[in-house]
């Protein structure tokens, strides 16, 4: 991987740990002989850091050895960079108010230039929503690249759905080589099949505020965001907030009144997000026309299974014992039917021996 001089400038500026986003921006301008506001930036940096520190940073920035070492380190770690000046830097992200200077990449770089759609959910997502989310992402990923985080719950479900095609981008809240999440397996899978993106240099640790910073990239990369679950105060709300700011389409699953896992979703809908109860809603907004839907072929449910399925269709979620008493069936028969339906992927267990339809 070879970088142009201006790309290297960005990578090196980004590698200097003690600088904030604005400082880096000013440093780049101050060291660029063609920049109009060069003088202004330089004097401002001196004002912030003082002469000594500024000169040190500047010297480090233009030190040939340091520059080489930064690139060599990235190469050693197997990380590629797409900088603000690179050809494949995502166009949508570029036009957000504070695009990252450098995207550190691991995986299939070509995904950066595809159409992207974000699917986010909180850690505490009900089982049937997880299944639903998985199915959505599996279908979406045949047309667009699914963007998400790497947390448990909604994000993980989105990833495992999209892994069927590999069109999945995960955005990390910290450097690649810091342990951000316990889901190492999932991370590795995405690394080999999809793409992992971070705006942070490989060793920058995760901090509380970096999650919100990361959310702006998820929203910035995508044409729209689907929020599958989220409390009123969860991180998914911040992603949705950025998406609104950036003028992206926001979709949200509707929830029952009082369901804690979906309070945020319902509020989004209340404040103008698109209610999403079918994947067609998303395809319509993206302007994608699908040919005939491919339905998974399973033997039609019959007998007890059909009865259970119909009851669940009517009632939503139900306890196995309740199903038995409602249908006047033996409990063992109901359990058998439910197991079969679960294996067929028509219903899902929501904990505590209750089942619900997908």
């Amino acid at each position, binding site marked *: 991987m070879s970088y142009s001089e201006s790309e290297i400038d960005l990578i090196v500026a980004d590698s200097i740990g003690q600088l904030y986003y604005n400082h880096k921006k000013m440093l780049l301008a101050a060291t660029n002989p063609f920049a109009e506001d060069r003088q202004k930036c330089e004097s401002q940096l001196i004002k912030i850091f003082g002469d000594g520190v500024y000169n040190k940073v500047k010297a480090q920035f233009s030190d040939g050895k340091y520059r080489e070492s930064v690139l060599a380190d990235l190469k050693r770690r197997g990380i590629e960079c797409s900088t603000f000046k690179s050809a494949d830097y995502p166009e949508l992200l570029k036009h957000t108010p504070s695009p990252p200077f450098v995207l550190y990449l691991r995986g299939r770089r070509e995904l950066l230039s595809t159409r992207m759609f974000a699917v986010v959910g909180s850690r505490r997502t009900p089982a049937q929503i997880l299944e639903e989310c998985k199915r959505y992402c599996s279908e979406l990923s045949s047309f667009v690249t699914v963007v998400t985080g790497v947390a448990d*719950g909604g994000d993980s479900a989105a990833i495992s759905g999209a892994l069927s095609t590999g069109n999945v981008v995960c955005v990390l809240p910290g450097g690649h080589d810091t342990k951000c999440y316990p889901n190492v397996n999932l991370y590795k899978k995405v690394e080999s099949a999809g793409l992992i993106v971070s705006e942070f240099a490989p060793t920058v640790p995760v901090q509380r505020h970096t999650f919100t910073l990361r959310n702006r990239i998820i929203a910035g990369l995508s044409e729209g965001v689907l929020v599958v679950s989220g409390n009123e105060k969860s991180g998914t709300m911040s992603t949705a907030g950025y998406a609104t700011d950036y003028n992206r389409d926001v979709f949200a699953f509707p929830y029952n009144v009082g369901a804690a896992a979906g309070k945020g979703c319902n509020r989004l809908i209340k404040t103008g997000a698109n209610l999403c109860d079918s994947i067609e809603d998303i395809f319509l907004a993206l302007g994608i026309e699908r040919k005939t839907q491919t339905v998974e072929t399973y033997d039609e449910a019959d007998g007890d299974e059909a009865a259970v399925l119909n009851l669940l269709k009517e009632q939503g979620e139900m306890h196995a014992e309740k199903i038995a008493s409602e249908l006047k069936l033996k409990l063992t028969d109901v359990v058998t039917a439910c197991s079969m339906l679960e294996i067929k992927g028509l219903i899902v267990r929501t904990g*505590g021996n209750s089942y619900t339809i997908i």
Partner: protein
Amino acid sequence: MLSKITSYALIGLDGVPVEVETDINKGMVSYELVGLPDTAVKESKERVYSAIRNSLLHFPVNKITVNLAPADVRKEGGQYDLPIAVSLLAASGQLTANADGIVMLGELALDGSLRAVNGILPVLISAKSRGYKKFIVPAGNAGEASYIEGIEVYALKTLRETFEFLSGTPFEPVKVRSFEAAKSRTSYGCDLSYVRGQAMAKRALEIAVAGGHNILLAGPPGTGKTMLARCIPTIMPDMTFEEALEVTKILSVSGELGEEGIVSLRPFRTPHHTASAVSLCGGGSSRIRAGEISKAHRGVLFLDELPEYTRSALEALRQPLEDGKITVTRSGGAITFPADFILCASMNPCPCGNLGSKEKQCNCTAAQIRRYRSKISGPLLDRIDLQVEVDAVKYEELAGDADGEKSSEVKARVERARAIQRERFSAEESVTVNADMGEAQIKKYCRLTSDCENILRTAFERLSLSARARSRIIKVARTIADLDASEEIRPKHILEATSYRNFDSTKQL
């Protein structure tokens, strides 16, 4: 003069005869007790002295040597008081009758009365097999002595009575009591019909007992996991006399035997989660004692809040769960205790306990839940065939008056299923119930039709089951088929079995 009296020493659950020899000779007045006695036996001198005096007999004042042979077996406890006293009386010429072949055990009180001692039943059984026929035991031990046929046991109250008995006064031997009568006098305090709702969990218990499977109950606090567990013994087949003797032996040695003298109810042990590995499995430095798992032999070991137990305590259970017995090895020797029990464990679904609850929101992150569950190691989970969720019962259901099935009805089904298994495994040596099956037996007795194979395969893919779960599901399916009196395992049996596998899923939470 020299005298010899026979007593008995227990090593684990088995024993050896001990000769109590007393020699009284001229010389400096002294009293020596030799033959590896422990402190309790050494202190017997004072008890024996007072008891003899208070029984209006004479304690010899000479050079006395008492020897307990064989000299290399440690003698423990107060049970040698009586033989030592009798031997002193014989050696001093006060007692002239022949006491050969009579095994004596008993602790003396200062007033000469006999106190009950631990471990009488295993002594009787072991001594009987060595050909001893006549025994003198304290009256307090008459209960457990009354269930052994073919021997004469005299349960006496005092040293004076013993003296008279040996001098020729006739006494009635302990009457043999029937085990059936003892059984009818006792009952478990609970019944499955007292548990409201929870039909799923009850069904799982039935399967667990029918096939001898270990079971894990997962559910929020206060859902009746403990109550369900307490009902397990009530649906287990009644103990046979042989089983009852095995259990009684262990409790007799531990000194936990009640008035009745025999255990006719299946044991239900609930060690607290602070229990150490040694207290669970057995051990001790000088005298090796049976642990909770042996005291739960032929019954149920209930571990409430499984993840709270120390890792070492839980891991120590693995081998006995597999073998049905435990060999405790110490520098003093190795002793094998039986430990064939059904393990019933309970746990919360997550640290806060509300996961899967309809009313309360769970505040645990997936990582916390993973950490909580990972406290139970895979190999241990491997030995727990059934994992069931117990859900919170609504108040209306609790208050409702629809009575559930009685334990006795479930027990009848369990017994039928056990009978099928007995027949099936009649040729196998180490296998008596489905849960004992190894890979070889699974291949032999659990042929799956292609239908079943297909379902099993799809289930594994769909439900992301771990490979370990396979044989477990098949074994449980075999038991369900037995309960159904079905010769072959049908798809529905497999399907039901897969629904008891909550913790196998490798799915992300």
